[in-house]
């Protein structure tokens, strides 16, 4: 099947003025030609199929929004090319706009002074949506969220969460094949986040809409995305499903052991002593393997990469030397894996 979005070797560079400091500096800047080139996106390629939900991740300033802006057509790549729905978005921006829905974080497309339902009616006309399709869509919406409680309130009186919800609904209103959501859950409470995830998931399922989602929240990713693409400093560093992510970057598990009958009464010194001796023990046993030891919740925590040492072996080694009163093993979360990737720590050797 032909992908709905093709991004081919796209690079985007910004020319920015080198700013000087202070008042004198800012006056000097008025006449300055001292530019530097910032490469925001660096040779990124990906194909996205109809109906996929792709999580587009990366730390702040990685180039996520810049990529989305190029895919929607408000920025033109410095080199490389993009095709979205068979259209080159930055050459035919207005035409492409008919086939996409977009939510840019905190920037609303709703009419500020009017109730949300009025904005929906206007968008219906602007996107030339048929009466019947519009009615069906609103009906579908009302099965997903309590429309009556939000639709009749002026947008400027809404909470951030309600407005984001309305903006997401607005972006799906003309049933576009592709919807871009740039950090839709930023600043929202847990309940609203959950609601928005559910909404996006349902709309994707009902309408087979392709969704490209940028976020910092691993909860969003775990709830929605089968595929994730990670970029860092403009470069794509990962593009696959979540299961592979954990596989590729090591089968990490955390082993927590309690070395005292009553861990609550342990002093800081005692804990630190335990930490050092466990650490030494492990280094003696496995001199080539890096196994970070830390104190967490008055227990000793050991991060084990199962690619090199089995957790059971580690437990045995510890038990040989200490009396273990309690222990538990936890899978490392997607969040920690991704944080490790951002931090640039080389987990894979």
């Amino acid at each position, binding site marked *: 099947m032909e992908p709905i979005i093709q991004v081919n070797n796209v690079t985007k560079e*910004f*020319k*920015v003025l080198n700013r000087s400091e202070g008042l004198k500096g800012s006056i000097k800047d008025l006449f300055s030609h001292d530019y530097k080139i910032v490469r*925001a996106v660096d040779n990124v390629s990906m194909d996205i199929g109809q109906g996929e939900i792709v999580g587009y991740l990366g730390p702040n300033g990685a180039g996520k929004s810049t990529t989305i*802006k190029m895919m*929607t*057509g*408000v*920025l*033109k790549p410095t080199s490389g090319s993009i095709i979205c729905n068979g259209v080159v978005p*930055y050459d035919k*921006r*207005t*035409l492409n*706009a*008919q086939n*996409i829905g*977009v939510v*840019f974080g905190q*920037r*609303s*497309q709703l*009419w*500020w*002074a*009017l109730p949300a339902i*009025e*904005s929906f*009616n*206007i968008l*219906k*006309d*602007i*996107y*030339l949506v048929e009466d019947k399709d519009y009615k069906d869509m609103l009906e579908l919406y009302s099965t997903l969220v309590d429309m009556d409680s939000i639709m009749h309130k*002026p947008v400027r009186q809404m909470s951030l969460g309600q407005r984001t919800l309305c903006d997401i609904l607005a972006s799906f209103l003309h049933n576009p094949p592709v919807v871009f959501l740039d950090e839709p859950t930023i600043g929202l409470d847990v309940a609203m986040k959950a609601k928005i995830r559910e909404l996006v998931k349902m709309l994707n399922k009902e309408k087979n809409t392709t969704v490209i989602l940028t976020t910092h929240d691993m909860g969003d990713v775990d709830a929605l995305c089968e595929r994730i693409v990670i970029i860092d400093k403009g470069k794509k560093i990962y593009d696959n499903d979540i299961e592979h992510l954990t596989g590729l970057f090591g089968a990490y598990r955390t082993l927590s052991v309690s070395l005292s009958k009553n861990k609550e009464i342990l002093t800081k010194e005692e804990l630190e002593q335990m930490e050092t001796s466990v650490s030494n023990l492990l280094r003696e046993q496995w001199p080539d393997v890096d196994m970070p030891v830390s104190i967490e919740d008055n227990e000793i925590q050991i991060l084990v990469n199962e690619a090199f040492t089995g957790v059971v072996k580690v437990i045995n080694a510890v038990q040989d030397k200490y009396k273990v009163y309690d222990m538990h093993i936890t899978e490392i979360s997607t969040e920690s894996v991704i944080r490790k990737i951002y931090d640039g720590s080389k987990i894979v050797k």
Partner: protein
Amino acid sequence: MKCRKYLSMIKAGIMEDMQFRGAIIMTFFGNLLYLLLAFFLWKAIFESSDSPVINGMTFSDTIIYLVFAAALFNFMEMWTVWNMGRDIQDGKIVVDLLMPCGYRRLRLFRGLGEVIVNFFTTLLPTAIIVYFISGKAIHLGLNILWFLISVFFSFFINYYIEFIVGTIIMYTESIWGIDIMKEVVVGVLSGAMIPLAFFPEGFKQIALALPFHAIIDSPMTLLLHPEYGLTDVVNILAMQVLWFVVMGILSDVFFKFSLRRITVNGG
């Protein structure tokens, strides 16, 4: 049914404007205050003069002109510079650029609702009041038709000029100074604040060579001079059409050029 798009935007503009009843009332009183000041200023000017006619205009001619010109000027106000400035500064323009409708058209139709409200709240009542208070000094005839045609072009010339000024904000990143400068330049050179007849000759020639006079001076001349022959009328309207075309092309090209600069370089 493409006009559905635009009708809907106009309707929204009207609804949105109605939300700000306070602003409508404030505009009304602000305008009243301005006219009172103008009244006393011009009264003083005429009293200090030896002749009751200055530059071919009597005191009552001048006041009728000023009241009407102010109403016309307010009628066309749809805050284009201000709105564009805000869109550009907070980056909301990105959202507008992703509407399936060109930005210049989007701003125009979103603003038209307000202009329609302005018509009923300022221009029409002012026209009726001036007509009766002045003892029916305004001739009712073909001049009204010429006036209305002229106002159509005035409106677009004004909009295109505002759009050009709004585009300049992409470079300067300051709204305030630019907007005030525009208000003063357009207010004076269009003839909205002082009739062009009162300008010194050289200055008047400059004003007539610029597009701004086509916004207020042209329609007012057509309205208040029913004695003008068809050649005069056609001359004035032709000049307006010329500026309408020139400013239309200029605003479009300048915006597209500036936008390309931003989409390519990142502003």
